[in-house]
């Protein structure tokens, strides 16, 4: 099975994150950048499918040149090769444009199965998988907590507020995964060494036949007008329980009319 895993580099959610003061895009220079956590689960799932059914795993990233670090890290987990779409014109792209570029790259990769995270931690938009399904005309199985592959037949379980759903489709398909699906492996020393030599193909927008003004600020379909930091919350009263902590808590809730 030919599997492509979508991997996005994002600012570390554990560090201070901000928007750029000059152009309102996510500040990627100051924050430490990491693989979008959910995508590690997609990589793990791809590797498990390859181990069980054979095939090849390709990592695909659309992002700035610095994203190479995250690509090498992804490769150290075990995928065979990577494709990195980088182009200065991409800066400022909205989700609609990003999906256009990803779809163009996927058009050259002939995947039976596209795996990706359910959401990215910077944008949290959760829309790219469905945008890609729409553009590529392939099936979308999204939000999987379990994936079963039986020949070309795919079955997922996905959590809903009421319980869960079982959803099926045939390849070619895109499957997005939550962090409940597996436990991603740590790269081994051997994996890290091997990753340095794995093929990493760089593509520009021109290679994909996408015009510069379809992406970036020029092609953006939405615009951040302004942003501000919310005033930080400050802690209020703090009491030390000396036998009446529970009562004091309820007294507070009563003054706020919650009881």
């Amino acid at each position, binding site marked *: 099975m030919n599997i492509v895993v979508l991997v996005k580099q994002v600012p570390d959610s*554990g560090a201070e*994150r*901000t*928007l750029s003061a000059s152009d309102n895009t996510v500040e990627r220079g100051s924050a430490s950048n990491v693989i979008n956590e959910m995508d590690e689960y997609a990589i793990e799932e791809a590797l498990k499918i390859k181990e069980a059914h054979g095939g090849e795993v390709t990592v695909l990233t659309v992002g700035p040149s610095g994203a190479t670090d995250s690509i090498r890290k992804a490769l150290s987990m075990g995928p065979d090769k990577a494709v990195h779409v980088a182009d200065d014109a991409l800066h400022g792209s909205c*989700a*609609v444009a990003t999906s256009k570029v990803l779809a163009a790259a996927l058009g050259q990769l002939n995947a039976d199965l596209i795996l990706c995270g359910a959401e990215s*931690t910077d944008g949290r*938009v*959760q*829309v*790219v998988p*469905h*945008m890609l*399904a*729409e553009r590529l005309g*392939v099936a979308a199985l*999204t939000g999987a*907590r379990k994936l079963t592959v039986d020949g070309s037949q795919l079955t997922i379980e*996905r*959590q809903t*507020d*009421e*319980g*869960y*759903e*079982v*959803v*099926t489709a045939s390849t070619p398909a895109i499957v997005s995964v*939550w962090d*409940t699906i597996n436990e991603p492996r740590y790269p081994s020393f051997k994996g890290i060494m091997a990753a340095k030599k794995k093929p990493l193909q760089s593509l520009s927008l021109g290679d994909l036949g996408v015009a510069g003004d379809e992406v970036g600020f020029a092609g*953006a*379909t*939405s*615009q*951040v*007008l302004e*942003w*501000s*930091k*919310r005033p*930080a919350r*400050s*802690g*209020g*009263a*703090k*009491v*030390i*329980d000396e036998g009446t*902590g*529970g*009562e004091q*808590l*309820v007294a*507070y*809730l*009563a003054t*706020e009319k*919650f*009881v």
Partner: protein
Amino acid sequence: MAEVLVVVEAGVKKVTLEMLTIARGLGEVSAVVFGEADQAKLAEFGAAKIYTASGADVLDHGAAPKATAVAELVKRVSPAAVLLASTQEGKEIAGRLAVKLDNGLLTDAVDVAADGTATQVVFAGSTIVKSKVTKGLPIVTIRPNSTTPVASAATPAVEELTVAVSDSDKLTTVVERVAEQKGSRPELTEAGIVVSGGRGVGNADNFKLVEELADLLGGAVGASRAAVDSGYYPHQFQVGQTGKTVSPQLYVALGISGAIQHRAGMQTSKTIVAVNKDAEAPIFELADFGVVGDLFKVVPQAADEIRKRK
């Protein structure tokens, strides 16, 4: 006045009423219903028109046929905006719709102004952003608990849609829907009060304490990722960056340290109360009221005290 399409969540959830309330500031409200919905409720909150679409072709294939239905409607009635809920399915329909119409899209808004400018809260609740769709009409998904629903009665005209569902809209099939035990608690993202437990709760059995307090307060139960990963409580109740975002009137954190990724899901709560035995726990930096103490002593006492006051 142009129509504003509000794509209704099955069962008419609270977020639907919030969307109807916001939509009234943008134009004349038309609800789009897939399957069954409480039409009286939609009327009570101002739906001047209700479009319905049903049948297995529309309902059993995920977001694709629904996006087709909304796209057809957009082309036909040229609405001023389309609002959807920031739920898994709402975002999926929105994403497809944006591609179909080659249109901009804004997700997780807490408000939409009359001119279409959306307000979003990002980066773990630390930053407020105002954005606008610059290509096409505003397609905006609304986060639950963004506003207080306000009724405004209307007498809606109901129109049944015939949707041209293509084969490519039916590539996925929902073959089974399994309902899990739900009980009488309000839904996590829509609850006015949320009581969450963390690793400090110690084990699954002890979560009864968290549930008891939630029930006494009429709230929902939430959990930190550490509590979920340790198997204390099911994943769908996880609050935080990789779980649900909640914004209740009251959030009670029991045995939760207050890591940045947990804050991401609860920081915009109106009032925050915490019980933690570590006086230095970061959760106290955002708690309006904190008790430094053992939750196994404080929580049962609080529960007794609430019972006494009832």
